[in-house]
């Protein structure tokens, strides 16, 4: 599945876009704790989080995570958006909860296996 397809499935608004939006992803990491994210070693991952903080973008940068989806329709402060632009991290926002968002993506075929 491509990152752009995730936006469609979650009916997410894309707030920061890069050309990586056409890239394939094999796995989703859903977490509000950044060190847990960093313990998770997989390639081509999209991060789903309910945490709104510049450190989410930093974590994505260090992990080479190309896209972050903020769940529960949280308002993103300009500092987060600006940092994402600077670091070329795709940012999306969806009104879905973490549980529903993960469920929808899993049943659409991103099961974290074979990636």
């Amino acid at each position, binding site marked *: 599945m491509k990152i752009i397809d995730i936006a469609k499935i979650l009916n997410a608004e894309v707030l920061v876009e890069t050309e990586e939006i056409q890239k394939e992803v094999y796995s989703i990491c859903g977490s*509000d*704790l950044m060190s847990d994210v960093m*313990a998770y070693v997989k390639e081509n991952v999209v991060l789903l989080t309910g945490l709104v*903080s510049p450190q989410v973008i930093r974590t994505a*940068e*260090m*992990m080479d995570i190309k896209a972050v989806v903020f769940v529960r329709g949280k308002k993103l402060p300009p500092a987060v958006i600006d940092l994402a632009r600077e670091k070329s991290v795709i940012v999306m926002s969806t009104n879905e909860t973490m549980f529903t968002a993960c469920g929808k993506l899993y049943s659409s075929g991103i099961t974290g296996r074979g990636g």
Partner: protein
Amino acid sequence: MSSGVLRRQYTIPGDDLTAAGEASSSVKKLLVQLGVDPVAIKKTAIAMYEAEINAVIHANGGAADVFISKDSITIVIKDKGPGIADVNLALQEGYSTASDKIREMGFGAGMGLPNMKRYADELDIKTEVGKGTIVTLKVYF
């Protein structure tokens, strides 16, 4: 130091959580420019970022000293914070003294030091209660 070693120094501000991670970000960029193997870059970036964040959230900031040679990178992160009373305990997965305020910022899983151990090829922690902490990380390319 002898020739062939690239040295960089960074201050880690203690009062700006938006800036926390800038030193690690700069080092990551530098390694990409130097054409270092991507796996080694990721290991370095994660380990250094965890150490940088710890210096910010637990010790009110500090400084990073970075040495890059042909085959490895050594990162020394120093702070003048409270120190760590029991390093072996702190190294256990899940151990954290983070306050609610720190947890709200997405930290406090107690995974930072375990991640440093996992991603760095060598990890050394020198710490004294009331004085501060020196974390040294080494990754081979």
